[in-house]
């Protein structure tokens, strides 16, 4: 019995498993960073969408309409690759000489000096920006709607007190907007959390990839513990992790809702 426990403890704390546990940081980082960026892009998008100038208004509407329709997996694959090649193209115009271009045998980049090697941290940033862009389009709609839900009388009263336009915007309009936006934003957040399971598409050794690797059947003692197909056990751990994140998120949004609702007389608080 004690031997069994000691065996499992040592199995679950070997280097491979420790790497797996450490890879949870990528998922958590991508979710938090992606969520923050989504709110920022959402605020920008909503501002553009309600702008007085037609071109800006069109950009905002275009962003929220088009990007919302593109599948997140597709955007995840498209955006980092397009960004990488765009950077390489710009760098190539600066560093490539005719000789280095002639020496390049691969079709891309134009010369080897212009190659940008993407490691885990670069991919993680690009993944977060992709998440932010995709879900920022949803947040745009949520925030745009919430801005329009703030009772008009509140804004008129603020103006009557002599507040400037920006004071009205920041102290009254955006301040009160959160109460209406938070339920929608909590949905967007949950979608972002779910989308973090796509990180392995960008060569990030994330929790899903490691669960796959650790769970795959192994027959060779030299490689590690010999076992059958254990993937479902490892996937189960991921289930539990995501359910835990969901539970924590709900608690956090409840607390945020109470906080933003303080002092606001509103039917939106429910």
């Amino acid at each position, binding site marked *: 019995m004690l031997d069994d426990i000691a065996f499992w403890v040592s199995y679950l704390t070997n280097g491979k498993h420790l*790497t797996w546990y450490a890879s949870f940081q990528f998922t958590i980082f991508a979710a938090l960073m992606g969520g923050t960026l989504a709110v920022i892009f959402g605020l920008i998008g909503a501002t553009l969408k309600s702008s007085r100038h037609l071109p800006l208004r069109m950009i905002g509407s275009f962003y929220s309409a088009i990007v919302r329709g593109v599948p997140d997996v597709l955007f995840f694959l498209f955006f980092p690759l397009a960004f990488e090649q765009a950077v390489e193209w710009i760098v190539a115009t600066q560093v490539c000489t005719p000789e280095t271009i002639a020496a390049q045998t691969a079709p*891309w980049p134009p010369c080897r000096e212009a190659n940008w090697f993407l490691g885990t941290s670069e991919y993680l940033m690009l993944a977060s920006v992709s998440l932010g862009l995709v879900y920022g389009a949803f947040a745009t709609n949520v925030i745009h709607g919430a801005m329009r839900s703030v009772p008009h009388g509140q804004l008129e009263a603020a103006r009557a007190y002599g507040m400037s336009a920006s004071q009205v915007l920041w102290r009254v309009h955006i301040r009160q907007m959160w109460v209406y936006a938070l339920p929608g934003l909590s949905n967007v957040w949950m979608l972002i959390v779910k989308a973090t399971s796509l990180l392995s598409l960008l060569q990030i050794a994330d929790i899903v990839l490691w669960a*796959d690797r650790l769970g795959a059947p192994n027959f060779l003692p030299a490689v590690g513990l010999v076992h059958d197909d254990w993937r479902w056990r490892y996937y189960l751990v991921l289930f539990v992790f995501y359910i835990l994140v969901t539970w924590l998120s709900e608690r956090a949004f409840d607390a945020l809702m109470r906080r933003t609702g303080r002092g606001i007389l509103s039917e939106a608080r429910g």
Partner: protein
Amino acid sequence: MKKLVLAAVAALALGTPAMAQEAVRIATEGAYAPWNFLDDSGAPAGFEIDLGNAICEKAALSCEWIINDWDSIIPNLLAGNYDLIMAGMSITEERLATIDFTQNYFPPDPSKFVAAPGSTLDFANLSGARIGVQGGTIQAAYAEANLASGNTVVSFTTADQNMADLMAGNVDTILADGAYLEPVVAASNGAIEFVGEDILIGGGVGAGLRKDDADLKTKIDDALTALKADGTVDTLIAKWFDGKGPYFAE
């Protein structure tokens, strides 16, 4: 001046590719035991890791291992993300069109079919079978060309997934390198067995490199010649492949 500043910024941001010249970066898949895999500590290990380190010692190069998925391992070599591929890659005409190979360090090895015990597949006249292969391998090319009509060829990104789906009954048989399958079958206690006839494809396993890297090719080839002559390659093959060989002894 502006150009200079831009170039300097770019070089800083992109990690100065020119400075990485000294260290040879070797890419491997890390999911193809006993050729290359990640050991319990999560570090690369296996026949090719031992051999690669021996080559680097012989050629007085400092080497660094990089794990890269199989399906993008050639494109990323061409892009310059690393200098050498040692990932159980067979030397074939198709691959020689885009990359170069050193001399082989593992002799031509027959590809074999495996299945769960009691398989009723008729290999002389294979039809209606689900055949698992790893995408981008010589076996995948062979199966697409010769077995695709009447059968379903299922392509997996790693050998592990292929094996897991055979265990789960999602494919009827796997076509893969004999040298990869032999230790697995031997260790499986009868859960998997060889079936059908062996197929000879591929010209042995070598290290892949870019066509314009003639210097590196010469260095690696010289080191391999020396390591074959002194028996190191045979010793490593015997160590990792259950006493196979010797193949290269004089």
